[in-house]
């Protein structure tokens, strides 16, 4: 009995794992934490590429993972407002509560797009902090990597140099890749694209693509047949007198070339429009794990660009 007790004490005293346990809300942050931490970090993503990060249930497994995490890395900007607050509260983990060093919100470190001037539910599920899907502009990853490496160094001071060095190396590789991607994307500049949800605003902004319309009538509202029919009408209309398509909704999807969706959006509305308008429907990976090639952050953009260029 006494020996058993000693064994339990010993087991409790021994560090189970020396690495920093990271709970990432989305796969891109788990991937980034791995890039920065290497074998000093074990990163677990609460969601995967087939899940809509807006609509996650505060499942018991998430609470158990948050309980044992040393660092929670999330997008923020209210993306996880429907599920993360109860997960963190229920976890009983003081270190990862908002405001503590163990809580990191990526969106705070980037310039957010589409910050609304007023919040009105009649405009759909609009986030007061702007569009939260920041990961598809790789320059945002660079902006997040530096403070994230710093945070890892603060939580695991013994390895601060390790994180700083890895961040340098990551930034170098990423900058080189960005230059390459931007060159590859020159022919895509000005391409008019219809997106299912406002999931790709940062990608379009980065590469100079134009979001000609969305299948959702308003953010978070399911695409209805009336709205789709309206989009189809616009897509079929010929531009009058060669005038360039306006920004207003009436001319929105004229001359659009492509419909894009994430792996978790229902393919049906896009397929419906694709079939009738002749525009191809392309599934972009959206995050790490969203396609076979998007196995890390570099693969994510390689594959996204290839798909936009119609190469895969």
């Amino acid at each position: 009995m006494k020996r058993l007790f000693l064994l339990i004490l010993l087991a409790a005293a021994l560090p189970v794992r020396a690495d920093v346990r990271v709970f990432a809300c989305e796969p891109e942050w788990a991937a980034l934490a791995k890039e920065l931490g290497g074998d000093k970090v074990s990163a677990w993503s609460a969601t995967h590429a087939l899940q809509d990060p807006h609509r996650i249930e505060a499942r018991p497994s998430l609470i158990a993972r948050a309980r044992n995490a040393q660092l929670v890395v999330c997008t923020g900007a209210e993306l996880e407002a429907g599920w993360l607050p109860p997960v963190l509260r229920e976890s009983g983990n003081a270190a990862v509560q908002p405001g503590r060093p163990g809580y990191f919100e990526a969106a705070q470190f980037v310039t957010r797009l589409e910050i609304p001037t007023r919040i009105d539910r009649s405009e759909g599920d609009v986030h007061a902090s702007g569009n939260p899907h920041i990961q598809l502009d790789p320059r945002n990853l660079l902006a997040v990597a530096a403070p994230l490496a710093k945070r890892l160094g603060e939580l695991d001071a013994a390895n601060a140099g390790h994180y700083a060095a890895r961040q340098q190396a990551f930034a170098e590789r990423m900058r080189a890749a960005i230059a390459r991607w931007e060159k590859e994307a020159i022919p895509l500049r000005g391409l008019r694209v219809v997106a299912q949800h406002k999931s790709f605003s940062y990608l379009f902004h980065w590469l100079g693509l134009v979001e000609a319309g969305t299948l959702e009538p308003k953010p978070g509202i399911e695409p209805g047949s009336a709205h789709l029919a309206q989009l189809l009408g616009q897509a079929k209309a010929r531009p009058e007198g060669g005038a360039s398509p306006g920004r207003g909704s009436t001319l929105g999807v004229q001359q659009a070339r492509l419909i894009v969706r994430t792996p978790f959006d229902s393919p049906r509305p896009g397929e419906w429009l694709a079939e009738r308008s002749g525009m191809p429907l392309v599934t972009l990976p959206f995050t790490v794990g969203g396609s076979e090639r998007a196995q890390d952050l570099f693969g994510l953009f390689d594959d996204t660009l290839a798909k936009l260029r119609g190469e895969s």
Partner: protein
Amino acid sequence: MQRIALLALAASLALPAAAGEEFAPEASLILQGQYRRTKDVPERAISGYWSAGHDHGASRRLTFDDSELVAGARLGGSARAQLNLAWHNNKVEVEEAWLQALGLGNGFTLKGGRFLSGIGYLNEQHSHAWDFADAPLMSKALFGEHFAQDGLQLKWVAPTELFVELGAEVGRGNAFPGAGSKGAAAFFAHAGDDVGLSHAWRAGLSWLDSRAKGREGHFEDTDPLGPNEVAGRFSGRSRTVAADFVWKWAPDGNPRYRNFKIQAEVFRRTESGDLACVSDVATSPCLGGLALGSLRSVQTGGYAQAVWQFMPQWRAGYRYDRLNAGAKSYDAATAFAALDPANAYFSRHRPTRHSLMLDWSQDEFSLLRLQLARDKSMPGVTDNQLTLQYIVSFGAHGAHKF
């Protein structure tokens, strides 16, 4: 003792606030409306069960009950406060008003104030989060609807990959099945996990020990001049054990388009103590209070339900309720000298109910629901009920527990 604990809690909350931590308030308003058409039953009761407040419901009615105002605030990373005010029978009630310390660490959280008890599964959910327009018969029979504690709750989450949570509560014990501030203690254990990408479950065991002093219920007496409404009174101990289970499915873990949920809860309640009745009607045998000997009851029951979102925005659900009359022991000669044996409480009827619902949500902030139910809570009455309900929420984005 309790006061000291509350003081300690208040101090632990005040410290970080004083240290200048971020204060993040949020508010939301939830409006509910129900139109209900039921059979005209003069005295509604769940047969065989102590009436936890009784209902002279009209057969057709429109109510805005359970419309709620919720205010919450996070005090840095160390605490959270929440207030829920609900509209009930033309009154505003404080459903919850609590402070929760989140900075204890090691998996511990401490909540103090008035809060919905963590026992069972449905009990912690406010009515706007229910899948049906009304509570299961089990919740109504056991708690009147919800069991709220005025007290303290300590919870602990185990440091394991399997979700394991233990909780203990102490409360004043005024809420049914307790009465007279004799105290109530509750314990619960939850476990849960994912199975593959598409499945998740949670199971729980709960135990509630309440003491009642003069707990009132609605009875009719044996006055030879005609029955009077008198107060039955129970003083003694009420112990409830309950098990709950919920299992959810969503293809690839993405519930947005399609999902399925099964949930069931069962209970066993044992009450032992003394029965009395009291009336101020001059001819009532209960005039001035009359002891009716000892009372002991063992009752069981539960419900099971399934809800299926078969396409975006649309869900259909079925619920089956069943309560067993169980066993009661009392001295019939003494009890029935004063109380009419036809009182619902003494009935051997087994209440059952079937409910079907269909709801449609425009988005996460609005819902319309149609519910049809065949309620056999009372002997000889088959009540076909129709309910139309809407729920609209404004303000902070709601976040619900699993």
